[in-house]
C-alpha cells in the first residue's frame, strides 16, 4: 500500500493543462453512459409525481439535495485521498448505503464506465489503468460512481470543492437531459431550467460539501421509494 502511495505522488501531473481535462470530464459527450439513467425521474413521471415543469424543477432540487447529503462525503473523501485503499473502503461502504437496488446498479454501471474511460483517456496518469486492473482482478470492488468520480478528479489534481460542485453539476445536467427525452420539456426549456436551478445547486453544494462519510444520509426518502419502483414499470426508456 505504501508503494502505491508513492506511485500516486509520481502520478499527479502538475504540468498538464487541468482546465481542458476538467471541461472534458464534465462534457456530456464523454462516453460514460449517463444518458441511460434518469435518477428515478421516469418512475416519478409514471407515478404522476412529476407532470409539469414546476414539478420537474422541484424534483431536480430534491435529487440534488439527496445527492448532496448522501454522495458528496464520498466524493470529498476520495478526492482528498485518491489512493486504492481509500477508494476500495469507501466503495464498500457506499455499497451498503445504496439500499435501493435500482440506484445501486446504476451507480455501479456509471462508475465502471467512468473508470474505463478515464483509464484510457488520461494516459498521463498510469495508475488509473493500474488501479482499474487491480480492482477488476480482485472482484470485490463495485466501482460505485461517486467514489470513482472523486478518485479520478483527485488524481487529475482538482480540489475537493470543485470536484463536489462538479458532481452536483453532472447530476443536474443528466436529470434535465433525461427530462427532455421523456418529453417533459424541450431542449431550450431544459437549458433555461438548468440555469434557473444553478444557484440552488451552488447553495446545496455549499451546504453539504466537506462532510465526513459517517454523516452521509438521505434527505428525501420518497425518492428512494419511487426510484425503487423503476423495475416495476411496464415500459421504460431508462435503466434507472
Amino acid at each position, binding site marked *: 500500500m505504501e508503494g502505491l502511495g508513492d506511485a500516486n505522488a509520481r502520478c499527479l501531473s502538475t504540468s498538464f493543462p487541468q482546465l481542458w481535462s476538467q471541461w472534458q470530464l464534465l462534457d456530456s459527450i464523454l462516453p460514460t453512459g449517463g444518458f441511460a439513467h434518469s435518477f428515478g425521474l421516469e418512475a416519478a413521471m409514471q407515478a404522476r409525481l412529476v407532470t409539469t415543469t414546476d414539478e420537474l424543477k422541484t424534483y431536480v432540487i430534491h435529487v440534488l439535495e439527496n445527492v448532496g447529503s448522501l454522495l458528496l462525503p464520498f466524493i470529498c473523501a476520495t478526492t482528498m485521498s485518491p489512493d486504492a485503499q481509500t477508494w476500495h473502503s469507501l466503495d464498500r461502504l457506499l455499497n451498503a448505503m445504496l439500499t435501493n437496488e435500482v440506484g445501486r446498479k446504476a451507480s455501479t454501471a456509471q462508475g465502471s464506465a467512468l473508470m474505463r474511460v478515464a483509464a484510457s483517456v488520461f494516459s498521463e496518469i498510469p495508475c488509473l489503468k493500474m488501479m482499474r486492473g487491480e480492482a477488476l482482478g480482485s472482484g470485490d470492488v463495485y466501482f460505485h460512481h461517486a467514489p470513482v468520480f472523486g478518485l479520478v478528479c483527485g488524481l487529475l489534481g482538482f480540489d475537493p470543492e470543485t470536484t463536489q460542485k462538479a458532481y452536483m453539476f453532472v447530476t443536474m445536467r443528466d436529470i434535465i437531459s433525461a427530462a427532455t427525452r421523456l418529453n417533459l420539456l424541450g431542449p431550450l426549456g431544459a437549458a433555461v431550467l438548468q440555469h434557473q436551478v444553478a444557484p440552488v445547486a451552488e*447553495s446545496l453544494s455549499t451546504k453539504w460539501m466537506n462532510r465526513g462519510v459517517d454523516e452521509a444520509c*438521505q*434527505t428525501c*426518502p420518497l425518492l428512494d*421509494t419511487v426510484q425503487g*419502483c423503476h423495475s416495476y414499470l411496464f415500459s421504460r426508456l431508462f435503466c434507472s
Partner: protein
Amino acid sequence: MERGKLIVERVEGKSTLTRCFSKYPFKFIVPKKVAFSILFRLKIVSPFSNIVSFQHQVGSSQTDAVWIYTITYGGGIVSGDSIAFDVTVADGCNAVLTTQSSTKVYKSIESKCSEQVLEASIGQDALLVVIPDPVTCFSTARYSQTQNFKLVTDSSLLLVDWITSGRHERGEKWAFSHYKSTNRILLQPTQPLFLDTILLEQGSHGSIADRMNDYQAIAMIVLLGPKLKHIQNQIEEDVRKIMSQRPSISSSKPNFIASCSRFGPKGMGVVIRVASTTTEAIYNFLQHQLATMEELLGAPPYR
C-alpha cells in the same frame, strides 16, 4: 449513564428473558399472555381456564418467542429525553421488541433533541423482530434514533422503522423540526451489510412537507436471515403485484407506493420502502405481509 439491558437466552429449551433492566424515562413490559391469546382465538379456552392443562393440546411447540414492550412514562418522549438500551438474543432464541402505541415525540424545548439508541446483538440461528408502532413527532419536535444490529451468518432480523407526518387532526403535517433515523446492520466482525440514515429537517429549499409530496407516512421494512426467507419471496411478489396493478393511464398519484430491493452478498436481505397517504394503509400492509410470523412468534406482528 447506565443503559437498559435485555438478554434472551435458551433456558430449558425455550427462549427466555434472563435479564431485564430499564430506567426512567422508559420501562419494559414483558407479558406472559402470548400463549393465552392464541388459545382465546382458537376458542379452546375461556379467560378463566387454567392454561397449564391445555399447553400440550395446542401444539404451541412451534411458538418460541419472548415479547418485550418498550413503554415511556407519560406516553411519549419529552424534549431532551434519552432512551438507550442493549439487546442480546443468544443462539437459537427469538425475541420481539415492540411498543404499545405510537411513539409520540413532544415539542422541543430550547432546541433540545430527544434520542433513542438501540444496540442489538443476534446470535446463531437467532431472530430479533423489531415491530414498533410508528414514531409521531409533534410540531417543532427534534428527535434522533439509532439502531445498530450485529449479526452472524445465520442470524435473522425483521426490522420495521416508520414515521407519520404528525398529529394530522391538529393540522400538523411534517411540522417537526428535526428527525433522524439511523439503522446499521453489520455482519460480525465488521462487515457493513446495510447502512441507512434518513434525515428530515426543515430546509431553506423547501420544507419537509414539500419533500413528502402529500404522503403522510413512510416506512422501511428489512428482512434478513433464514427464518424470514419465506416472507422475503412472498413480499417481493406482492409488492410487484400491488405496484404493477396501477393502470398506466391513471392521471393521479397513487395513495400507496412501495418498492422492494435486495441487498447484501447474494441478495440475502430485502428492504421495502413505503410511502402512503394514510397510516392505516401501512398498518394493513404490515399486518398482511407479516401474518405468517404468527406461528413462530405466537401472535401476528401487527393486527
